[in-house]
Structures are given as structure tokens and as C-alpha cells.
């Protein structure tokens, strides 16, 4: 049994629920046979992958749905062998080069050149498609190596890159692609879709609850559908919030209630716990900032955000995440304590000073 979000996934450009105008343009473009490289970007759960699948179907017909898993073996110049899983049909191949880490350049070069030499299988469409998922995680090296290849092999090869954000994609790559922004569905649209799915599944749910889910999902359709399915399975009458949110909220409270070294140790445990449950660090940071913003004083907010953005960046560049996270926690605690102490001494001057 498939999950609801998979079962009700639209399979053709005609059936998409939102961004219909864009779908029409895409259809026309595919018809005119003038198909460029694509960079599809948008927030998670906004339907990027669905659109890519629809586009592929529109180009090649139902044959693309017959996929198989292929193991690629790539050899580095130093004769080290790298293994990578890819999903492929007769017409396209989907790779996630960032799985391999810093060697992603080799994947890009290897896969692209292999595919480019073989060309398309159908007369009508003289090219194959490579789908690169999580393109925002591609290293700069890998992106540089894409530049000229994209131009050179344009007759036998098209790239579709799927990214959460276009910020990390280098300008030369962007200028060679058609940028396709996928806006997340509005809250109303999500409610509509939820209603439709609930009806199909014979799930008795009140409209007010549907709206609550839609709001809680933060315009992430996948999350909304999963939330509703969870409720269906548990037969519960209210939204079950993900437990990590509550957990992080508790963490935020710990940080402001009499800060001390002991607390830092305590929070380290919490952080490891979250990491063990595979909660991504950017999500931890985001929820934590959100909770802290609500707790802490107006004058401290600027400092808080400054610290958060600084340490989040460091964490990306550095290798051991817990170090940077702890640095953030400790730094913020210190700032918080200093702030409360200062205020105790000159409560009246405070307003003037700020």
C-alpha cells in the first residue's frame, strides 16, 4: 500500500492541481520540441519532483514509469572505487551526486559523458534526460564541470536539476538553464486537496480540522498529507504534532532558564538525541530560533539572529556539527545572562540606551 502522498500524485501535466499556467507553458514548450536544460527549484513539498515526473511523461510517454535501480561504479583518478545508486528508465537516469560527498564532480562528468555518447532511443526525441536531485548540494567543482558540457552535448542530452534553493547554484549554470520556480500551494489549495483525498479514502474529518492541518503544514503539501494519514491510522481527533518540535521547544526553555555550564552539557545530550532521529540541523536551528524569539526580550532578538546565522554558516563549512551548535548555545546563554544582569542594575536607563 502506497502512502497517500504517493497514491494521489498527479501523473500528467494536465492533472496538476496548482501552478496550472506554468504547466501549460511547459506543455507547449515540449510540443515545440525546443526543450532546454531545466533548473527546478522550490521549497520542500511544493511538488518539484511531481512536475519533473510529469514532464518526463509528457516527453517520452508512459515508458518512463518503468524504472529500475542501477548501481554505478565510478573510479577516481587514484583508483578508488565509488558506488552510487541511480534510478533509471530507458529514457532517463536519476542520480544524486551529493550522496558521494566531495567526489561529486566525478559522478557528474562520468554519467554525463556516458549518456551523452549514447543519445536518445526514440526518433521523435533525440536526447536522454539526466535528473540531478538535490542539485543545491553540488560542490562548486561539480558545477564548474557542468558548464561547458551542458553546451557541448546539448543535442543528445538534457539536464533537469532539482534544487531546494537556487542560491547555491552558480550564475554560469543558471544562465544556461530555464529556471522553473515551483511555488508551494497556498493554504486554501492544500485544504482542497486534503478534502479530496479524505473523501476518496472515506476518512471522516471535519473541515475545521482540515484547515488546521493545512495551516500547520506551512504550505508543505507532503507534510500535510502525511499528517492527515497519521491521524487516520491513529484514529486520533486532533493533530499530532511532530515530537521533535516539542523537544526543541523544551530545549529553548532550558537555554533561558538560569544558564550554566551544566545546561550546556544537558543540551548536548538533547542535540545528540535529535541527530540520532535524523532531524536535519537546519530544521533544528529554525525551530529553535522560532521558539527562542518568542521567549526572549525584544532587545536581544537582533543578537540572537546574528549569532544563529553566524554559527549556522560555520556549521556548514566545518565538519563537526555539535561543536558549532554548542558554541551557539553557549554564546547565546552568555549574551542572555549579561543582558539580564545589566537590566537588573539600571532598569531605567535601559530604554534610553537602546
Amino acid at each position, binding site marked *: 500500500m502506497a502512502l497517500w502522498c504517493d497514491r494521489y500524485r498527479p501523473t500528467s501535466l494536465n492533472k496538476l492541481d496548482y501552478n496550472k499556467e506554468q504547466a501549460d507553458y511547459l506543455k507547449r514548450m515540449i510540443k515545440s520540441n525546443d526543450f532546454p536544460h531545466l533548473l527546478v527549484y522550490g521549497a520542500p513539498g511544493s511538488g518539484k519532483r511531481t512536475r519533473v515526473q510529469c514532464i518526463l511523461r509528457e516527453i517520452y510517454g508512459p515508458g518512463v514509469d518503468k524504472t529500475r535501480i542501477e548501481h554505478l561504479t565510478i573510479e577516481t583518478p587514484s583508483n578508488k572505487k565509488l558506488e552510487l545508486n541511480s534510478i533509471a528508465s530507458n529514457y532517463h537516469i536519476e542520480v544524486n551526486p551529493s550522496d558521494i560527498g566531495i567526489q561529486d564532480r566525478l559522478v557528474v562528468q562520468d554519467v554525463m559523458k556516458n549518456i551523452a555518447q549514447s543519445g536518445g532511443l526514440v526518433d521523435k526525441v533525440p536526447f536522454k534526460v539526466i535528473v540531478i536531485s538535490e542539485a543545491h548540494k553540488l560542490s562548486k567543482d561539480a558545477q564548474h564541470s557542468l558548464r561547458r558540457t551542458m553546451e*557541448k552535448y546539448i543535442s543528445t542530452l538534457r539536464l533537469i536539476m532539482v534544487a531546494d534553493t537556487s*542560491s547555491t547554484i552558480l550564475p554560469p549554470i543558471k544562465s544556461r538553464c530555464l529556471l522553473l520556480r515551483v511555488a*508551494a500551494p497556498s493554504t486554501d489549495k492544500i485544504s482542497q486537496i486534503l478534502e479530496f483525498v479524505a473523501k476518496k479514502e472515506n476518512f471522516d474529518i471535519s473541515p475545521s480540522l482540515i484547515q488546521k492541518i493545512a495551516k500547520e503544514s506551512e504550505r508543505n503539501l507532503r507534510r500535510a498529507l502525511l499528517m492527515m494519514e497519521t491521524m487516520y491510522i491513529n484514529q486520533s481527533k486532533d493533530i499530532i504534532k511532530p515530537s521533535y518540535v516539542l523537544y526543541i521547544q523544551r530545549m529553548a526553555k532550558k537555554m533561558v532558564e538560569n544558564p550554566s555550564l551544566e545546561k550546556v552539557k544537558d543540551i548536548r545530550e538533547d542535540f545528540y538525541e535529535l541527530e540520532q532521529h535524523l532531524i536535519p540541523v537546519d530544521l533544528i536551528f529554525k525551530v529553535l530560533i522560532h521558539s527562542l524569539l518568542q521567549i526572549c526580550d525584544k532587545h536581544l532578538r537582533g543578537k540572537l*539572529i546574528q549569532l544563529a546565522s553566524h554559527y549556522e554558516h560555520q556549521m556548514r*563549512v566545518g565538519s563537526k556539527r555539535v561543536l558549532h551548535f554548542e558554541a551557539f548555545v553557549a554564546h547565546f546563554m552568555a549574551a542572555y545572562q549579561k543582558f539580564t544582569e545589566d537590566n537588573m542594575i539600571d532598569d531605567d536607563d535601559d530604554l534610553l540606551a537602546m
Partner: protein
Amino acid sequence: MSQEVKRVMVPWVEKYRPKNIDEVVYQEEAVNVLKQCLKGDDFPNLLFYGPPGTGKTSTILALAREMFQDQFSSRVLELNASDERGIAVIREKVKRFAQQTVSRSENGNKYPPFKIIVLDEADSMTQSAQACLRRIMEKETKSTRFCIICNYISRIIDPIVSRCSKFRFKPLQQDLVMEKLATICNSENISLENDVVLTELIKVSGGDLRKAITFLQTAYRLKGDEILTINDVREVTGYIPENWIDMFVEACQKQSYENVEDVLNSMVAEGFSGAQLLNQLHDWVLGENCLLTDEQISELIEALALADYRLLEGADEFLQTFNVASVFIQLLGKK
């Protein structure tokens, strides 16, 4: 494959690439010197640098085509960042190609007595690979010339720079870009709403001709034979509509962190990119609507620069843009 299909497939960037060196626009100094070189036999090693889309690759390809004509493919080795270019390749492939001797004439035609190795996008070559080139460049001067192309000359090591004659490619002037785009519009039968569309196109592409042409083509692809409007151009370039920027600024002026958070969250959901927001904010700050003092502006721009750098390194969009907003809020609060 029918001829019809093949014709449509060509990106306009390739289709309208200058065929000979006279077609290269605006780079008179470089072109004049190169033409002189064509006449005589004293052809130097070349180093082209300049912003993207100014015609560096086009120039050398056109030049080589003029010099070698039908011998083009056997006399030119083009290596770019998509090829493996570690030390090993320099030592083997490049060296071997460099050591081949060429004759002055072939099949009765006269050609210059050397080959050209084009190292495109040389900024992404490692230092050691560059160091490897040094001696090869000198030793093989008899039969080989190098043309090194890069965006930033500072990434090329000094010993290489000193072995080449440098040519800076200037960012193209607006009216030249305009002219070229208008020609393309004519020959591709694109109908524009008005001239402002082209001006907008040039504005968003910032003097990069390749970018402008690609944008034009993508907009045309999306709209088909319909009339192109400003909004189409903005959509394909990922431009954030003005009202979002206004909303952002307004939220900052209200001194409300909650409002800013909401605005940023919906921006992320709409799929607008953080880097683009920074760009447009930068325009806004320097525009006339902004009522900040010089000191405040400089502080804000510093925050923008920091965020831009961090975003490129892969930091979280929301947090980085939020930091900019928070700096902005504090600046306004100090007034």
C-alpha cells in the same frame, strides 16, 4: 533525425556566436591587437580575462577558425573545466599535443606554423596544474601557443601571467547588447510588447550578453509566438515582484520580528531565492526610495555582503535573510 528538429535544438548562444573576429563586439583593443598578430608570425601566448558573457571564448574560437580554417580540429585543443585537468592530464595530454610539430602548409594551403591550446575556465584549475604548465609553455613555443581564459586573473599564478600577453574584456555597453538582442528578435520573429522589455532584459543580465540571449530564448520558449511582456522576462530570470520587496521593507520598518518572519517564510514557500532577494534589496538600498543615512546604508550593505557570501557556501536561506532583516530593524530602531 530530420533537419527541422535539428535546427530548433540549437541554443541561440551557439547560433549567434561570432563566426569571425570582426563580428566580436566592443572589444576593439583586444581585437585590433589580435588582428595585427594574425598578419605577422609573432603570435604571443594569450591570457583573456573579464566578466562572463563578454566574448572571451567566442574571440579565440573565431580567431582560430580564421587562422586554421579547415584544419581547425587538428590544430586546436580545447580543454575546459568539464574535462579532467589535474596534473596528470597536463603532463600527458597537453604535453603530447604541444610536442607535435606542425608544418607551414598542408594540401597546398598555408597555415600559421603552430597549434593553439585553449584552456577555458582556467580559474578552476588547481595551482599545481598551473605550475606544471610553466615550463611546457616555454619549451614548446616553437610549435604551440596557449590561450588561457578566466574570469578572475587573480586566480592564475604569477609565472603564467608573466608568460602571456593579457587582454581584459570589458563588460559590454548597454546599447551594443541592445543592438544584438534586437537583431536576434528580428531574425527569430519575436514580438515584444515594447522596447522596455529589452531594457529590462539587459538590466537583469548585467552586461552579460550570453545571459541576456539565454533569457530571451527561454522567455520565447515559454510563451511561444505570443507577445513577450516585462513580466515574462522577470519570471524566467527569477526576479522577485516588487510588492514582495515592499512587504519585506515594510515589515522591517514596523520593527516587528514576527512580521518579518512571516514574510520570509512565505517567500521561501513561494520559492524565491535568497540570493535574488539580497540582490534586489541591494538595488533598493541604493535607489531613491530608501531614506537611510550613508552610515546606515554602509552597515546594511555589509550585512548583505556577508549574507551573500554565506549563502553561496550553502548556509540556510531563511536564517541569513533573517539576519539581514534584523540588522535593518536595528538600524531603523537607532534613528
